[in-house]
């Protein structure tokens, strides 16, 4: 869906790092979002999937302004919203709403539903009562009204017929023409239109709140009740109503249905789709449940360790995933409702820590299609065992050692040396390594015994690593509007799907 229109949101090389540094010695920052770029077009739903720790929530929050971006830009309507602060940022936050994950937590229990939904309205002193004049260039006068700006839509339109003023009010506003009095004065040729609104703003806000509750499928008497008295699904509806209060164009939905039962989930998903059609909204739908995303998203971005590894039209990505991570993710969905028809590709181990992401491709440590160096001809099982050994050393390098360790080392005691032997023996037991490979492993163990686990991992990487460990892949085009960041997409390499299939047979 390539459009010549400017996208609603344009994210460019966005980085968000958390720095929980102490004041004496800061640990490396958590690279939650590490260079992400994509566009979201008007009216579409962009799905953002990934597992916990991949940074999808942080990405959503950065767009909204809840987290500060470390680098990169997020452009909306021509401005970089990451640079905004104070007043400007509040204006941006009027145009984007967020629905949170946990319906039990995202509502303040001490406020009634009515108060919760009205709070954004009160905070921004909505409605803004922008007045536009048709048919003449006139000055606007009035206590509660402001002249409409160039980019905004007018709430109240006054059409001048000579000295008569005809008032129309924007439909979405719970205000009618009868509540507005407009008069015209002419002096020095330029007319002045004075507008007075007889309905109190608080009244308008109340009615808007009732309208919102109705829109999300709740009833009027829910206005007076407390969240405690509702079920999870109903609370989530309140959260949606609140997010829509200020008439945003763009909604970030952070796992809006994850905490709900399946049958409730279905109703909320239907509601979200209906609202999107009714109000012309654009969604960024963050989730870890791939089936839900498939249903609701037009395009999907798959995130891993702060990177978007694949981005494309939903159907394409789900039917022919290009990136090995997407393949693993899809194949892990249990049950016959899964979109994946092949065998399950079970990933080994856990994702690396975002404080210490791998240099090169972030997925290199677990990739089922990792490029292997040509120097060695080893079966896949052996490669995987070596990978695991490397991970063991890396984890040890990062682990908090006890205070006694350096002392032990000084004295010459073997720090976890025996354990190391055992671990290595376990991992490599059934694998026949050629002599050179053995010696590399031995060298690594030596380093580890001396306390240099990082060095041990490094040694293994030098010998058994490949391009995947060194180069960060660029995005490759897989089709229209479809990119995937994998080195295997370069010519000369076997395709991802074939490699995975072949290796699965091997193991």
């Amino acid at each position, binding site marked *: 869906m390539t459009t010549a229109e400017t996208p609603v949101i344009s994210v460019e090389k966005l980085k968000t790092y958390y720095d929980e540094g102490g*004041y004496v010695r800061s640990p490396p920052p958590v690279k939650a979002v590490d260079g992400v770029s994509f566009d979201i077009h008007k009216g579409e739903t962009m799905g953002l999937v990934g597992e916990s720790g991949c940074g999808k929530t942080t990405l959503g929050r950065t767009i*909204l*302004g*809840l987290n500060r971006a470390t680098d990169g830009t997020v452009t909306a309507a021509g401005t970089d919203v990451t640079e905004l602060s104070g007043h400007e*940022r*509040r*204006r*941006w*936050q*009027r145009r984007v*709403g*967020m629905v*949170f*994950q*946990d319906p039990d*937590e*995202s*509502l*303040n*229990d*001490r*406020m*009634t539903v009515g108060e919760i939904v009205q*709070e*954004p309205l009160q*905070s*921004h002193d909505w409605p803004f009562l922008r007045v536009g004049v048709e048919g003449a260039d006139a000055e606007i006068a009035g206590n509660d009204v402001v002249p409409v700006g160039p980019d905004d839509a007018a709430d109240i339109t006054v059409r001048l017929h000579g000295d008569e003023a005809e008032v129309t009010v924007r439909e979405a506003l719970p205000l009618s023409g009868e509540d507005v009095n407009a008069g015209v004065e002419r002096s020095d040729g330029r007319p002045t239109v004075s507008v007075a609104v007889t309905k109190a703003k608080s009244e308008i806000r109340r009615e808007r709140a009732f309208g919102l509750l109705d829109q999300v499928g709740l009833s009027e008497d829910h206005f*007076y*009740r*407390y969240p*405690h*008295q509702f*079920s*999870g*699904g*109903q609370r989530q*509806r309140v*959260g949606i109503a*609140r*997010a829509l*209060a*200020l008439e945003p164009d763009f909604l970030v939905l952070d796992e809006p249905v994850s905490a*709900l*039962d399946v*049958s*409730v989930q279905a*109703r*909320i998903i239907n509601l979200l789709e209906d609202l999107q059609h009714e109000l012309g909204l654009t969604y960024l739908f963050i989730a870890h449940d791939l089936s839900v995303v498939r249903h609701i998203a037009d395009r999907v971005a798959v995130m891993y360790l702060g990177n978007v590894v694949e981005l494309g039209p939903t159907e394409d990505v789900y039917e022919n995933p290009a990136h090995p991570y997407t393949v693993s993710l899809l194949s892990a969905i249990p049950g016959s409702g899964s979109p994946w028809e092949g065998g399950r590709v079970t990933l080994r181990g856990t994702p690396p820590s975002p404080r210490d992401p791998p240099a090169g491709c972030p997925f290199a440590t677990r990739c089922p299609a990792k490029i292997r160096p040509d120097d060695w001809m080893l079966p896949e099982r052996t490669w995987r065992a070596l990978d695991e050994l490397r991970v063991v050393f890396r984890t040890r390098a990062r682990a908090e050692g006890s205070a006694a360790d350096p002392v032990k080392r000084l004295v010459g005691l073997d720090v976890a040396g025996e354990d190391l032997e055992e671990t290595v023996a376990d991992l490599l037991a059934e694998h026949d390594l050629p002599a050179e490979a053995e010696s590399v492993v031995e060298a690594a163990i030596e380093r580890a015994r001396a306390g240099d686990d990082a060095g041990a991992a490094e040694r293994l990487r030098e010998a058994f690593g490949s391009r995947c460990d060194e180069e960060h892949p660029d995005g490759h085009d897989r089709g229209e509007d479809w990119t995937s960041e994998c080195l295997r997409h370069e010519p000369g390499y076997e395709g991802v799907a074939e490699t995975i299939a072949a290796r699965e047979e091997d193991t």
Partner: protein
Amino acid sequence: MARAHETTSETVLPTESPAALWAGIGALLFVVEAGAFFDFFVGIVADFLAATPLPGAGLVNGVENAVERIPTLLSRELIPNGGYWNGSRWVGTFLGLRPGVAWGIRVLLVYLYAFAFAGWAVLGYRLYRREYRTADWTPRDDMVDRFRGHKWGVFGLVVVFMFVTMAVFAPTLGPTTVDKNMRDSYSYEINYWNGEAGEVQTTLVGEANLASQSRGDTADRVLPMGYDDFGRFHPFGTMPSGQDLFTFIASGSRISLLIGLLSVGLSVSIATTLALIAAYYKGRIDLGLVLASDSVMAMPQLLLLIMLTTVLAGTWLGGIYSGGFVLALIFAGTGWTYMWRSLRGPALQVSERQWIDAAKSFGQRPRTIMRKHMLPYITGYLLIYGSMTLGGAIISIAGLSFLGLGISAPTPEWGRAINLGQDYVATGSWHISLIPGLLITIVVTGFNALGDGVRDAIDPQSDAAEEGGAAGRGGGA
């Protein structure tokens, strides 16, 4: 104003418009004792202004005088106890009863009135809750219900209420007044029956006091619930100076309450504001506040107190409430740290909740977030620590006054009463130190009990009992 909802069975008040009736009762109750209330509040302001160089002191004094002339129902004039025996019967006491009994009746009526007033307030709450409030349940309801069932907490509440009543109605409760008995005792005369002479004689109050001193085992001493030689009733006995102990204590309760409230009020305001700020902004601001509060905590409170009290002794600042104002300021200034520490934890916990994020997401202002979304959740802790600190403040003030450092003489204060009686503790005049000591204990225990009750009422632990029920509840859209 909303009309009362239709209730078929029990109505709180069996009328068409309960609110009007309730308001009417309230007005009646208030008018009856308006003089006493005004006297209390105006008196506080007057005392403050009297000591400061601020303008308006004269005006307030005028108001005070005017207020004193407002007739009240339960007054010393209506139920007097300061009469004399004329050989055959009591003259000048209520219904000719013995002074002790008359005094007892007046005290009883005052307390009955106070409880009636409290009952009226509770009635109003129930009326509001059952009939006028649109929501049929709020989170506060559970807390109130839990508190009602908490015996220790209710006991604490009753004790505190009685203490406050004593403070507010002090001039009415004592068998005599501070003016007559202590301040201007040589300007007043009393009549008394001289048994030896067989006739009614007159003497100055001051002289009478001299003859009623309780100093150890002397014959002159007047024990609690006793009459002195001049036919005056002393519910708590007399002090070594011969002055009436009960009047001293009733009057002293005012200043204890006032200084306690002042210092705790200030403390709480500072602590809450800073706790919310620290919890909202976290990071450097939190660190800075921690450093600041640690520094303040490191200052020796007692030394600071002695120093400042001495330095400011002669100034107008030190004269407000006889040094009580300075005390309150110092307590607040050094005590906020502990409360801040206690509130910081809950505030930080609340700041991590998702609804705070949600409010930030639509651009809510920090001040509003702190007020609407964080403050309600730490109010409970505030009440707990506040009430306990109040008890602590009362003890501190008493202790300092005992040492001579707190409220300067001759303003009555409980600690000083203990001090005055300390030489006689093991003698026949044991009552002078013991009674104020007991009262302090009871009142502070009352405050702590109240804090306990509030804590149990809001404690999430109590919610665990609810969770068992929730386990079986259904969940749907």
